[in-house]
C-alpha cells in the first residue's frame, strides 16, 4: 500500500478542475508533474507559498490552451475550443504592440493609406454610379434628344409631341432652361438665377410635393406664377412662411410665388458638354403659346419622359425609329436625316464619369495590392523573428488555428486604427473632390458618407488585417516548422519578400506610367492650338430683354452702343460680340451649301453657326485667311454676307477662291436668302479641346439676331483680362443698368473647364501613383533594412573573414537593384498593356511617347530603389566583425 500523498491529491484536484474533460492519463501526469514541481520548490525555498505559486503558475499555463487535438476533450463544444484563450491572445497582442510601437504605427499608416484610397474611390464611384436617382421609378426615366447628321441637339417640340403620341410614356415633359435676373423688393439688388420652364409632368416625375402652396398646372403657362426652390426661399425670401403670393421681378417681368419646393429636390441634366442644368431656383409654367412650340425647325427643348408600364427602352427606341421615319417622309424640309436619340436619365447624367471612375478604381486596387504586399513583407519579417517561439508552441500542441489566431489578433489594433483613420481620410478626400468646382462631377450630393461606405471601409480594413499575416504564415509554413532551423526559414521568407517587393515595384510602375501618360495627354490637350486666343480674353453674356428692345433693330443698336461704351474702358484692346463662343458649351449647328452645287438638306455640310459683330475675329484671335472681316456697313447690304471657316471653304469650293461665291445657310435658299462669302477664317475647336477643328459659318448681327450675346473683350497685352471685369460691368450698366450680365469668365477658365474631366482623371491618377510609388519605396527600404538586420551576423563574419566594406555595400545594393529591375521588367510589360487600354483617354499621345516614357520611369524607379536601399546597406557595412565571431563561436 502506497503511503497517502496529500500533495499529489491536492494537485490532482486542481488539474481535474483546470483540464475539464481531459483523459485520466493526462490529468494524472499533469498532477504528478505539479506535485513534483511543488515538492522541488518547497525543498529549495522552504516556503509553502513559493511552492504553491510555482505549481499554480505552471497550471495557469493550461488556462485557455487547447488541450491539443486529443479526442480526450471532444466533449467540449467546438466553438469553445476555437475561442479558447482569446482573452490571453488579446492581452498578448497588446503587449507585443507596446514592444514595437514604431513598426505598428508604420503598418497602421499603410492600412490607413490603402483604406483611404479605397474609400475615396468607392464613395465617388458608388455615389455617382451606384446610388439610385432620387426620383420615383427613376430607372424608367429617359431623356429624349435629336440626332441630325451626327449632331445631337435638343428636341423640337412638335417632334417630341409626335413621339409621345406613340403611347410609350405614362408621363412626359418638355422643358426649357435659362438664366434670369431676379429682383425681390429692392430692384437694385438683382441676382442671376437658374430658371426652368417645364410642363407640369416634370415635377410629378421628380416626385415633388410642395412644402408650401401648390405645384404648377398646364394653365400656369401663360400666367405670372412661379414655384421657387427651397434654397431660394431661404436665401431671398428669408424662409417667410407667408411667401405665397409675394411678388418679384424676373428678367423684367412681374411674377408671384405660388409654391415652395421641398429641400433637396433638384433636377440635374447635362444638356451639352459644357452646360449642365442644375440648381434650378425658379420653375415656371410651360408657355404653349410661345412660337417655338409649333416650329419643327427649332430644336430648343430638353425632354424627359417616364416609360409606360410594359414598354422597354428597346421598344421605345424601335417606336422612336418608326416615328422618325414617318416624320422624315412627311416633313422632308425640316426632318430629313433627323432621328430621335433615347438616353436613360441615369446614363445621361453619369455617362461621362464612367471612364475616369473606372481608371480610379483600377488605381485604388493597385494601391491596395501594394499595401497588401507591403504588410505581408512586414508580417514575414515579424514572423521570422518569432519563428522559434511559434515553432515551439506549434510543436508543443498549439493547433495551427491557435498560432494563426494569435498572429492575426496581433494585427487587430493596427487594422482598427488604420481603418478608422483611412475612413476619415478617404471620406474627406471624396468630399473635397466632389465639392471642387473644377472637378465638374455629376451628382456631387450623392457622394456622401453612410453605412454602405463605412461597411466598405470595414471590408477593406478586414482584407488588410487578415490577408497579410495569413499569407505570411502560409509562406513561412512551407519551410517545415519543426525540422528547419530559423535561419533556413529566414532565407525562405527573404526570398518571398523579394518577390513581393518586385511585384510592388511592378504595380507602382504601372500606376506611375498610367498617371504620367494621362498627365502628358492633359498637357498636350491644353497646349493644343484651339484656333482662337486662350489668354488675355474676358468673356461674358449680356442680354437685351424684351421691354426696351422689342425689335431686331433695337437689339442691334443696343449691342452697338454697348461696344462703343466698353471700348472706352482703359485696358480694353479690342472687343466684339458673338452669339456663341468656343468651349462655352453653347452653340448652334446649321447646314451649308454652295449655290453652284445644290444638295438635298440631308446631304449638306454641317457647320457650327454664330452671328457676330464686326471685329470678332480679331478680338477672339481667329485668323482671317482670305478676304475681309464684317464691317458695320454690311448690316444693310443685300445679299447678306457670310464668313466661312477654312475647312468649310475646302469642303464647298475645293481649291477654288470662295470670295464672292454664294452659299445657303440653314436652308435659307427657300426664302431666296443666298449669302455672299466675304472672308475665310481659321477653324476652331468648338465644343471641346479634343474635338477636331470643324467647319464653321459666321453671319452678321443685324442681319441675324438674338437677345443674348457673348461679349468678347481682349485686354491690352500684359494686362490681366479678368481684372477688366468691374470696369466693363460699369460700362455696360452705363448703357442699361438692368441688362443682365452673366457667365463672366476668362477664356483661360473656359479652356480649364473643357479640360476638367481629363484633369480630374490625371489628378486622381497622379495622387494614386504618388501613393503607390511612396509605398513601394518604403517597401524597398523596409525589406532591405529587415534583410540586413537578419543577416547582420553573416555580414559581420564576411567582413571578419576579409570582405571589404565596399564589397558588402555592393552586395546589398546589388540585391536591391536586381529586385527592382525584375519588378520594373514586369511593370514595363504591364504598362504597355495599360497604355493600350488607356488609348481613348490619351489625347495627342503617340506610341513613341509611351516607348520613351515607360523605360525612363522604370529607370527612375530602379534608381529610387537603390537609394532606398542605401541607408540600410550603409548599416550593413558597420556590422561588427568581432561580435559576429563571438556569436559564431557560441
Amino acid at each position, binding site marked *: 500500500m502506497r503511503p497517502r500523498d496529500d500533495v499529489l491529491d491536492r494537485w490532482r484536484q486542481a488539474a481535474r478542475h483546470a483540464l475539464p474533460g481531459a483523459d485520466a492519463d*493526462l490529468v494524472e501526469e499533469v498532477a*504528478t*508533474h505539479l506535485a513534483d514541481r511543488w515538492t522541488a520548490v518547497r525543498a529549495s525555498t522552504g516556503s509553502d507559498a513559493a511552492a504553491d505559486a510555482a505549481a499554480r503558475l505552471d497550471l495557469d499555463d493550461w488556462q485557455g490552451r487547447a488541450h491539443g487535438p486529443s479526442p480526450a476533450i471532444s466533449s467540449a463544444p467546438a466553438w469553445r475550443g476555437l475561442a479558447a484563450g482569446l482573452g490571453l491572445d488579446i492581452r498578448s497582442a497588446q503587449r507585443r504592440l507596446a514592444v514595437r510601437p514604431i513598426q505598428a504605427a508604420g503598418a497602421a499608416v499603410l492600412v490607413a493609406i490603402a483604406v483611404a484610397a479605397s474609400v475615396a474611390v468607392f464613395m465617388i464611384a458608388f455615389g455617382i454610379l451606384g446610388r439610385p436617382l432620387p426620383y420615383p421609378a427613376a430607372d424608367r426615366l429617359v431623356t429624349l434628344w435629336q440626332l441630325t447628321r451626327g449632331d445631337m441637339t435638343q428636341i423640337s417640340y412638335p417632334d417630341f409631341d409626335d413621339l409621345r403620341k406613340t403611347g410609350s410614356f405614362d408621363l412626359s415633359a418638355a422643358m426649357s432652361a435659362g438664366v434670369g435676373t431676379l429682383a425681390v423688393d429692392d430692384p437694385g439688388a438683382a441676382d442671376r438665377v437658374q430658371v426652368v420652364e417645364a410642363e407640369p409632368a416634370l415635377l410629378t416625375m421628380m416626385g415633388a410635393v410642395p412644402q408650401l402652396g401648390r405645384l404648377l398646372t398646364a394653365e400656369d403657362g401663360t400666367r405670372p406664377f412661379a414655384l421657387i426652390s427651397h434654397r431660394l426661399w431661404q436665401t431671398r425670401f428669408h424662409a417667410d412662411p407667408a411667401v405665397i403670393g409675394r411678388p418679384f421681378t424676373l428678367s423684367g417681368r412681374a411674377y408671384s410665388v405660388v409654391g415652395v419646393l421641398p429641400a433637396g429636390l433638384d433636377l440635374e441634366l447635362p444638356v451639352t458638354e459644357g452646360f449642365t442644368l442644375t440648381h434650378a431656383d425658379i420653375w415656371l409654367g410651360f408657355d404653349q403659346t410661345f412660337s417655338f412650340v409649333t416650329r419643327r425647325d427649332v430644336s430648343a427643348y430638353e425632354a424627359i419622359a417616364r416609360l409606360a408600364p410594359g414598354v422597354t427602352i428597346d421598344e421605345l427606341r424601335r417606336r422612336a425609329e418608326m416615328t422618325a421615319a414617318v416624320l422624315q417622309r412627311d416633313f422632308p424640309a425640316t426632318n430629313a436625316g433627323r432621328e430621335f436619340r433615347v438616353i436613360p436619365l441615369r446614363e445621361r447624367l453619369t455617362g461621362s464619369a464612367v471612364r475616369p471612375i473606372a481608371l480610379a478604381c483600377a488605381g485604388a486596387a493597385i494601391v491596395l495590392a501594394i499595401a497588401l504586399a507591403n504588410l505581408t513583407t512586414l508580417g514575414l519579417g515579424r514572423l521570422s523573428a518569432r519563428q522559434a517561439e511559434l515553432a*515551439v508552441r506549434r510543436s508543443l500542441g498549439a493547433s495551427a488555428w491557435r498560432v494563426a489566431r494569435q498572429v492575426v489578433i496581433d494585427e487587430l489594433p493596427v487594422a482598427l486604427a488604420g481603418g478608422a483613420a483611412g475612413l476619415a481620410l478617404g471620406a474627406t478626400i471624396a468630399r473635397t473632390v466632389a465639392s471642387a468646382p473644377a472637378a465638374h462631377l455629376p451628382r456631387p450630393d450623392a457622394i456622401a458618407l453612410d453605412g454602405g461606405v463605412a461597411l466598405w471601409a470595414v471590408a477593406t480594413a478586414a482584407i488588410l488585417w487578415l490577408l497579410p499575416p495569413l499569407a505570411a504564415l502560409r509562406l513561412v509554413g512551407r519551410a517545415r516548422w519543426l525540422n528547419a532551423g530559423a535561419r533556413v526559414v529566414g532565407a525562405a521568407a*527573404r526570398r518571398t519578400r523579394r518577390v513581393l517587393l518586385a511585384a510592388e515595384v511592378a504595380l507602382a510602375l504601372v500606376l506611375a506610367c498610367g498617371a504620367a501618360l494621362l498627365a502628358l495627354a492633359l498637357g498636350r490637350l491644353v497646349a493644343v492650338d484651339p484656333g482662337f486666343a486662350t489668354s488675355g480674353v474676358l468673356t461674358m453674356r449680356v442680354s437685351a430683354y424684351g421691354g426696351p428692345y422689342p425689335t431686331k433693330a433695337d437689339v442691334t443698336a443696343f449691342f452697338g452702343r454697348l461696344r462703343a461704351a466698353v471700348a472706352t474702358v482703359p485696358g480694353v484692346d479690342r472687343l466684339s460680340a458673338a452669339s456663341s463662343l468656343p468651349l462655352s458649351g453653347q452653340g448652334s449647328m446649321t447646314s451649308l451649301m454652295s449655290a453652284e452645287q445644290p444638295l438635298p438638306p440631308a446631304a449638306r455640310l454641317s457647320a457650327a453657326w454664330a452671328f457676330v459683330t464686326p471685329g470678332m475675329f480679331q478680338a477672339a484671335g481667329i485668323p482671317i485667311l482670305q478676304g475681309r472681316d464684317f464691317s458695320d456697313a454690311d448690316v444693310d447690304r443685300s445679299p447678306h454676307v457670310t464668313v466661312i471657316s477654312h475647312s468649310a471653304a475646302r469642303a464647298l469650293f475645293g481649291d477654288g477662291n470662295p470670295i464672292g461665291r454664294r452659299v445657303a445657310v440653314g436652308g435659307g435658299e427657300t426664302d431666296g436668302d443666298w449669302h455672299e462669302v466675304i472672308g475665310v477664317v481659321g477653324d476652331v475647336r468648338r465644343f471641346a479641346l479634343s474635338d477636331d477643328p470643324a467647319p464653321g459659318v459666321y453671319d452678321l448681327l443685324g442681319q441675324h439676331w438674338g437677345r443674348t450675346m457673348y461679349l468678347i473683350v481682349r485686354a491690352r497685352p500684359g494686362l490681366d483680362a479678368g481684372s477688366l471685369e468691374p470696369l466693363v460691368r460699369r460700362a455696360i450698366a452705363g448703357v442699361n443698368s438692368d441688362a443682365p450680365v452673366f457667365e463672366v469668365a476668362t477664356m483661360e477658365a473656359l479652356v480649364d473647364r473643357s479640360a476638367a474631366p481629363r484633369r480630374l482623371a490625371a489628378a486622381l491618377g497622379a495622387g494614386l501613383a504618388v501613393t503607390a510609388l511612396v509605398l513601394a519605396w518604403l517597401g524597398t527600404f523596409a525589406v532591405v533594412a529587415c534583410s540586413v538586420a537578419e543577416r547582420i551576423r553573416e555580414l559581420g563574419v564576411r567582413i571578419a573573414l576579409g570582405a571589404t566594406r565596399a564589397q558588402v555595400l555592393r552586395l546589398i545594393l546589388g540585391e536591391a537593384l536586381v529586385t527592382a529591375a525584375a519588378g520594373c521588367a514586369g511593370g514595363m510589360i504591364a504598362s504597355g498593356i495599360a497604355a493600350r487600354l488607356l488609348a481613348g483617354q490619351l489625347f495627342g499621345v503617340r506610341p513613341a511617347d509611351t516607348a520613351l516614357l515607360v523605360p525612363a520611369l522604370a529607370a527612375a524607379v530602379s534608381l529610387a530603389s537603390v537609394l532606398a536601399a542605401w541607408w540600410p546597406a550603409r548599416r550593413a557595412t558597420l556590422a561588427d566583425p568581432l561580435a559576429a565571431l563571438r556569436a559564431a*563561436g557560441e
Partner: protein
Amino acid sequence: MAVSRDIKKGSAELLVLSLLEERPRHGYDLAQLIAERSGGAITFTSATLYPALHALERQGLVRGRWDARPGERRRRFYSVTPAGRRALAVQRASWHRFIRALTRMTRPGRATS
C-alpha cells in the same frame, strides 16, 4: 561549435527525442533537463510539454508507460520507438546539413542570400 539558442528552440522535437534516446524519462525529468541544459533559456510548463509528448506518441515516435519506483510517485516514462530513432536520424542529418550550409555561407568572398 555550439549551437545558437534560437536554433535549439526551433528544434524542440529533435531536443525531446535526443533526450529520450539516452534513456526513458518522465515528463518532469524532461522539463528539468531542458531547463538545466538550456541554462534556463527554455522552460517547458506541463501545458506545453505533455501535449507535445502525446503528439509524439500519437505519431508513434515515443511510447509512454506507467511505472512506479519504490519510494517515488507513480510516473509515466517515455521511451523512443524504432520509428522514433529513424526520425531522429533524419533530423540529425538535416541538422548537420544546416550546419554545413551555415559554414559554407560564412566563408569569405562568396555571395549567397
